[in-house]
């Protein structure tokens, strides 16, 4: 006999101002199965929960429905609440009358109340068919994988390792270090970026609990929280890491040349190379696209081989191939960072064709002492020192028509930093900054911006730039000073664009590989914008750094630490509870057709032979069997099943149909 308790929450005025909660409670009081019905101001509060618990005891309830907010918000809370007084947590259902009702039907009180009644009736009809379910248990692999070896990945790995857990860093380029290694100075302190990053890189590489997997890609992720099976593709380095001593002799005579990506193509590098002098591991790779030997092999020849001749350790191995291997992890942290927006979409800024119109990251390399110009700020076109520099903010940011709709958060500060650096390096150079807004929330950030104007004499002009064009050796920048209401034209020697931060070009593919969400721009989605900033909707996968959205270094480092704590909390458990909402096959009904087997994305269903007594004889027949630790509860098999033997616990055919019928019945 079902005895359902119904509790309608006002959520203060959030629900109460639109939905007549008392009327809803009244309307379902005599609904089949309902033994008790009431409403209250805040159901999730301490007194609200006590009210539920007391009602369960007093009215001998065996099922509970709470109509309040989204189950994504408070299902856990109420399940725990009923469990405390001995009710199975799966005998509980929620009706969402806030997000799906009061908040979206403001002012339509009558219709919203009717809708709330429908939703509660549906929940009651379902809960009447709920069954007692018990959570399962699964072991935990006590090792984490951090994808991405930038500052966020390094920091996260160090924090996990220092807590005593094993952690691997997977990095797709030949060295860890990420974007921070390309940056010259950091705001607002003007610390040398390499000076604070390099020690962290060294610490990570020498930590007994950390393993670096560089020049490798994430290929496939299988399994589930606590038990991920990750397939990694180790790309052919053409250098035997166990033999190489990192002496660098191989690079001295290499005739192959390619654009140096680390230096933003402002100079060339050799085909066998390490991306930068402080690279870790400091062992080279051969870029097969620009290596003469590999290029000649495509034409059926086999030339060069100078690096092999030069190498005293015999470490060069032209025959290496990509290798795939599978590792087990309990948790995964995504720390894949960002890319810089390509300003060549802007025709009005020259489609990226003017050599002296550069991006912020180009400037970082120009001003870096170990960069292509040994730290001298010069024009890429003729290597002359610029006398007038124009900086343009929000290039690609806050531009839904041609770029991205969002603010990239870091540009205001890095532009201010770069402006002061120009004034420091070239005191005679005039610097102008075109801006729409100056957004500098952050400790000592606004003070830094003000120093840029007041002490460094940088001229800030409020307005977007409409056009940049080459006239002779100079670039004419056409903008508007909206505060003056006048057009301004500046003849500049160098233009630095503050390009937006964008996700890695393959971030969406990567999210699909790992099974996490991403937003319209390709940033990975956190589980809750406020209360779950480092978690994802996939248990056991966490986020650190700019892969979740534009972030500066301090924010990335803070988020990395937060992700590490979540990982450690997970790895500290010996066993994990698993959801009991999995598929189950009624072997009495199963005909053994096997149609469900290929439908299952988790390979959780197998056909097995059972023995049964039939007509006094023992006969064998095949039936489907669900491995409940592999099953994730999607329900695909239940629809495929012809005999109706496969059912999804907590979302059974009977339960869903009960909801459908309840709704249709209210229409009569």
């Amino acid at each position: 006999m079902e005895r359902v308790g119904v509790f309608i929450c006002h959520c203060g005025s959030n629900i109460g101002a639109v939905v007549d909660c008392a009327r809803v409670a009244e309307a379902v009081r005599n609904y089949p199965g309902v033994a008790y019905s009431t409403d209250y101001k805040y159901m999730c509060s301490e007194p609200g929960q006590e009210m539920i618990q007391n009602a369960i005891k007093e009215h001998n309830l065996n099922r509970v429905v709470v109509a309040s907010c989204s189950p994504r918000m408070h299902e856990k809370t109420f399940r725990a609440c009923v469990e405390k007084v001995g009710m199975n947590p799966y005998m509980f259902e929620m009706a969402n009358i806030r997000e799906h009702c009061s908040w979206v039907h403001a002012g339509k009180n009558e219709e919203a109340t009717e809708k709330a009644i429908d939703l509660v009736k549906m929940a009651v009809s379902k809960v009447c068919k709920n069954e007692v379910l018990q959570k399962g248990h699964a072991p935990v692999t006590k090792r984490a994988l951090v994808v991405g070896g930038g500052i966020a990945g390094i920091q996260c790995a160090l924090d996990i390792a220092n807590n005593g857990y094993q952690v691997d860093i997977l990095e797709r380029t030949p060295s860890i270090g990420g974007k921070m290694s390309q940056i010259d100075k950091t705001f607002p302190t003007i610390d040398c970026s390499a000076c604070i990053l390099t020690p962290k890189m060294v610490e990570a590489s020498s930590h007994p609990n950390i393993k670096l997997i560089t020049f490798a890609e994430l290929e496939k992720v299988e399994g589930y929280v606590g038990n991920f099976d990750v397939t990694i593709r180790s790309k052919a380095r053409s250098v035997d890491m166990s033999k190489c001593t990192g002496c660098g002799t191989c690079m001295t005579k290499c005739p192959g040349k390619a654009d140096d990506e680390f230096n933003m193509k402002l100079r060339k590098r050799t085909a066998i190379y390490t991306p930068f002098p402080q690279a870790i591991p400091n062992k080279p790779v051969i870029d097969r696209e620009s290596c003469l030997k590999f290029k000649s092999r495509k034409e059926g020849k086999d030339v060069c081989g100078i690096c092999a001749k030069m190498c005293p350790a015999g470490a060069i191995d032209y025959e290496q191939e990509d290798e795939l291997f599978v590792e087990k992890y309990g948790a995964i942290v995504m720390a894949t960072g960002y890319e810089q927006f390509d300003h060549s979409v802007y025709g009005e800024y020259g489609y990226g064709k003017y050599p002296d119109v550069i991006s912020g990251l180009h400037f970082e390399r120009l001003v870096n002492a170990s960069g292509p110009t040994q730290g001298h700020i010069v024009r890429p076109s003729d290597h002359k020192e610029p006398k007038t520099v124009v900086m343009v903010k929000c290039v690609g940011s806050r531009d839904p028509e041609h770029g991205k709709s969002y603010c990239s958060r870091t540009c205001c500060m890095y532009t201010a930093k770069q402006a002061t650096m120009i004034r420091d390096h070239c005191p005679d150079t005039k610097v102008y900054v075109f801006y729409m807004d100056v957004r500098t929330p952050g400790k000592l950030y606004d003070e830094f911006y003000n120093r840029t104007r007041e002490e460094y004499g940088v001229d800030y002009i409020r307005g977007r730039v409409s056009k940049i064009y080459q006239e002779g050796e100079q670039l004419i920048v056409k903008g508007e000073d909206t505060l003056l209401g006048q057009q301004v034209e500046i003849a500049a020697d160098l233009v630095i664009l503050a390009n937006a931060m964008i996700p890695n070009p393959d971030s969406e593919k990567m999210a699909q590989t790992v099974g996490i969400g991403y937003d319209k721009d390709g940033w990975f989605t956190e589980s809750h914008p406020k209360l779950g900033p480092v978690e994802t909707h996939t248990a056991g996968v966490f986020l650190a750094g700019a892969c979740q959205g534009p972030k500066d270094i301090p924010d990335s480092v803070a988020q990395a630490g937060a992700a590490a704590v979540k990982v450690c909390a997970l790895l500290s458990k010996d066993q994990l509870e698993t959801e009991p909402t999995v598929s189950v096959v009624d072997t009495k009904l199963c005909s053994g057709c096997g149609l469900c087997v290929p439908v299952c994305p988790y390979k959780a269903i197998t056909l097995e032979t059972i023995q049964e007594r039939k007509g006094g004889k023992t006969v064998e027949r095949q039936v489907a069997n669900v491995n409940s630790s592999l099953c994730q509860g999607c329900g695909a098999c239940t629809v495929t099943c012809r005999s109706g033997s496969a059912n999804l616990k907590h979302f059974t055919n009977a339960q869903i149909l009960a909801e459908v019928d309840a709704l249709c019945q209210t229409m009569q």
Partner: protein
Amino acid sequence: MSNNAVENFEPKILVFACNWCTYAGADLAGTSRLQYPPNVRVLRVPCSCRVNPQFVLRAFQRGIDGVLVAGCHPGDCHYTTGNYYTRRRFLLITRMMDYMGIDSRRFHTRWISGAEGPKFQQVVTEMINEVKAIGPNDKFRDDAKIEVKAVETNE
């Protein structure tokens, strides 16, 4: 039904929403206070592939005016491949409806992600308007009444 009744017709629409994308999208519409007509009722399922086409037919049989099955975008399914099954199953069902005398415009499948609150608002609003224009699904409604009563007496 009189013309006047048809004019004031407020359809009821059942939305099967997958837990990971569309349900979250509908929640986002709520937290963003995006307004839409109160004619829809959301039924939460783990994945759109959990929705047996028979559930949809049952709803139509019992007089629902419209059904929307909504899940994650193809390629984004929380369960990797679930919504591909949804897509195939309901493509066939939609075609079948026209032969069964159910106006297939009463039924839609849509992909709405957890970030697409505005899309949820737009999809349900458009659908409500479309179904309003078609009119009530009263084909089985009287039968349904009897059937429901019968079920009640059985229990």
